[in-house]
């Protein structure tokens, strides 16, 4: 069986930043990802980033990703395993992964989990028809593979992801017929909403999908108005001519692997669902197993980078590496995170972290 000092699962911003910190102090790192590239969600983010200046706000996601990749590639102590999906994890830090049909195992002294999140769906009739796609899938198809998801899109969800993917659809010359939102107000930043409104996209709140229409794939959608209790109101139905229904209705942390390992998990709605119980330094309940990024609670790339760094530092310390200025570095990162989570948009995260007990 292969061995490594520190195994990092997931090469998104969190995993790559954790890798950087570990490599910096001389640790030996194996970075594993199921995709054939590094970058995680950032591989498809062509828009200018929101977030703090220090974490590269107003640079494009794909450019920030390239900076992070350049920081670590060709490092003599880094091994990258691509196209490899981790499928099993055991308490003794043995990890099983598959490449194609082949099953492999690797044992690590420490494991950093940075596997990100999966996109949620909502129930409605025919929500399994081809053409009902998650927003991230639409984004991947367009921005990574250069393929249009369809011709006419109904966007569901007005958080930042729904707003941004709408804009990116327009950039790819795909029509967005309408954007609907179940709540009574737009969830994302108003700058993003104004931008797509100016481009002629109709945004309607208190609306949801009643059903998808089509035999083998989506040919239209039926939407309806919701009452205060989010129940559909009979008689308000409207048929939307579209071939894609794009779901931007939130993300849930990918905690199955940690559950499999027996780590303690807690349901925290504000953080997106089941999250691992961690301490301030991102240690889970299992010795030398850590969690960071979206997997430890849905936030954004800027915070994923910082929680990745904190995690890399604490793993380095636990592995016995001398970490220069550890206290100052961690204090600085915590302060930056606090700045990022400040204000009304950070309210939800702050509440969630309080429930988890990592924020007083």
């Amino acid at each position, binding site marked *: 069986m292969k061995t490594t000092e520190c195994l990092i699962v997931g090469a998104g911003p969190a995993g790559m930043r954790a890798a950087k910190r570990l490599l910096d102090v001389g640790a030996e790192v194996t970075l594993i990802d199921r995709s054939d590239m590094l970058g995680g969600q950032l591989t498809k983010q062509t828009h200018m980033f929101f977030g703090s200046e220090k974490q590269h706000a107003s640079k494009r996601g794909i450019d920030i990703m390239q900076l992070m990749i350049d920081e670590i590639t060709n490092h003599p102590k880094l091994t990258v395993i691509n*196209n490899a999906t981790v499928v099993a994890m055991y308490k003794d830090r043995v990890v099983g992964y598959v490449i194609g049909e082949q099953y492999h195992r690797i044992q690590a002294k420490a494991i950093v989990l940075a596997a990100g999140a999966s996109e949620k769906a909502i129930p409605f009739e025919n929500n399994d028809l*081809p*053409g009902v796609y998650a927003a991230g899938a639409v984004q991947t*198809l367009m921005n990574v*593979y250069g393929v249009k998801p369809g011709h006419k899109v109904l966007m569901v969800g007005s958080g930042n992801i729904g707003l941004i993917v709408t804009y990116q659809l327009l*950039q790819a010359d795909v029509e967005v017929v309408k954007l609907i939102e179940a709540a009574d107000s737009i969830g994302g930043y108003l700058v993003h909403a104004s931008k797509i409104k100016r481009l002629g996209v109709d945004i309607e709140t208190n609306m949801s999908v009643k059903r998808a229409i089509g035999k083998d794939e989506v040919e239209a959608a039926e939407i309806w108005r919701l009452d205060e209790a989010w129940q559909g109101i009979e008689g308000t139905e409207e048929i939307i001519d579209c071939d894609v229904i794009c779901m931007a209705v939130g993300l849930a942390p990918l905690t199955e692997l940690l559950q499999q390992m027996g780590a303690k998990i807690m349901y925290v709605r504000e953080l997106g669902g089941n999250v691992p119980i961690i301490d301030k330094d991102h240690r889970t309940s299992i010795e030398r197993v850590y969690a960071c990024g979206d997997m430890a609670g849905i936030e954004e790339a800027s915070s994923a980078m910082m929680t990745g760094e904190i995690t890399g530092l604490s793993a380095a310390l636990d592995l016995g590496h001398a970490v220069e200025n550890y206290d100052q570095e961690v204090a600085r990162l915590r302060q930056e995170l606090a700045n990022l989570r400040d204000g009304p948009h950070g309210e939800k995260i702050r509440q969630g972290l309080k429930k988890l007990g990592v924020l007083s």
Partner: protein
Amino acid sequence: MRIKEHPILGFKPRETIKFTFDGKTYQGLAGDTVASALHAAGVRKLSESIHRKRPRGFYCAIGNCASCNMIVNGAPNVRTCITPLEEGMDVRMQHGKGRVE
């Protein structure tokens, strides 16, 4: 269904890759996954569900949900959204649990 012009992304010309889907020849481009190549060719139905034989396409496109499972070179339950396309691949629609025929 390829994007021809884009204000930010420059899609460079890419080599074509030939493969078959249910016996018919299709063309994808270097860098495609099996699912992206099929989608670009207008194929959105990738499998039929186990019990009620309902049509299924992909959902997450990043390997999370298994909604894109197909039979690739004889192997069932391959997540085609994260499987790089290769020259000569034999791709088939999966009916139900994907018994090897």
